[in-house]
């Protein structure tokens, strides 16, 4: 073959695309966190996506549908999210400063996630409590659904929500990960 595209030139384009503000979503895959690979996405409004065990193809379609078709892997816009997550996993960060971007969610989901954001590091709450705080004490099941569809787990800490009997119940990333995160935070032994 004659000329081939070098990785450096490829990265240069990806950085330029982000620097010129041309992207609807910039994403990257953090390959080696303690809980496995995470796909992390950001928009101009903040952190819009964290996915466990990502299947990028399906994921990119979904991001394009929600935020616009200019979805591109570009590491520079992810620097802050990456740093905060690294610190969190190392036990050096208890609170995330990066803002979640939940604009595309229904109003009810946004309200529940806003309540969820107040549950502190190392503490847990229940689906029922969160439902009551969001305006309807009987909506525990609906709150469970909102947790399951949380677009930015870890940063919006749905792992801190457990059943009324103290059981971990469920987690979009699997119960092992929920347990691992609560252990990291010292919420369980």
């Amino acid at each position, binding site marked *: 073959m004659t*000329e*081939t595209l070098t990785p450096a030139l490829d990265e240069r384009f990806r950085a330029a695309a982000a620097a010129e503000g041309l992207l609807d979503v910039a994403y990257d895959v953090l390959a080696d966190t303690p809980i496995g690979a995470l796909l992390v996405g950001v928009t101009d409004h903040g952190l819009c996506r964290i996915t466990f065990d990502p299947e990028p193809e399906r994921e990119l379609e979904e991001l394009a549908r929600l935020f616009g078709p200019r*979805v591109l892997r570009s590491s520079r816009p992810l620097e802050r999210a990456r740093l905060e997550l690294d610190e969190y996993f190392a036990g050096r960060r208890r609170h995330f400063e990066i803002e979640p971007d939940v604009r595309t969610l229904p109003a009810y989901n946004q309200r529940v996630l806003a309540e969820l954001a107040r549950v502190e590091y190392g503490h847990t709450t229940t689906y029922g409590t969160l439902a009551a705080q969001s305006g309807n004490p009987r909506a525990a099941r609906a709150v469970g659904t909102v947790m399951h569809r949380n677009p930015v787990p870890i940063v919006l800490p749905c792992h801190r929500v457990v059943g009324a009997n103290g059981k971990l119940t469920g987690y979009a990333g699997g119960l092992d990960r929920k347990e691992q995160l609560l252990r990291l935070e010292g919420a369980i032994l």
Partner: protein
Amino acid sequence: MATAVPPFESFYEAHRGEVFRFLGRRLGRQQAEDAFQETFLRALRAYPRLEHGEHLRAWVLTIASRIVLDDVRKRRPQGELPELAVEDELAAFEQLAPLTEGLPPNQRAAVVLRYGYDLGYDEIGDALGSTEAAARQAASAGVRRIRSQKEQQ
């Protein structure tokens, strides 16, 4: 139903190699690097206005061809400028766009690159990943089809 515009990442991964090889042959490595970035930045700027995900390969090669022409023109001494003014060039391309709309992607790309951008058949063959003969054939099949469509109108 028309196919949806794919996420830019998928579009970029599918065409970056071919676009770079095309630019490399036309401009040489050094110039091709800048032209490569410019091609995909222009594509990115125009991307939200695309109405469907068809003919994307021909579309991005057309952008790359335009950048090659701009680059060649810039480096040519004043006296040797081709007779067509930039505006005429644009008009030629724009006149082709509606005419070629119904063509199969390969024929459309061949016609646009040949008559809109004045590329040789060898270069069009390179751009389309086929041969000079196949490019010539695609362009003439495209022209025949446009003619018969016009006669039917």
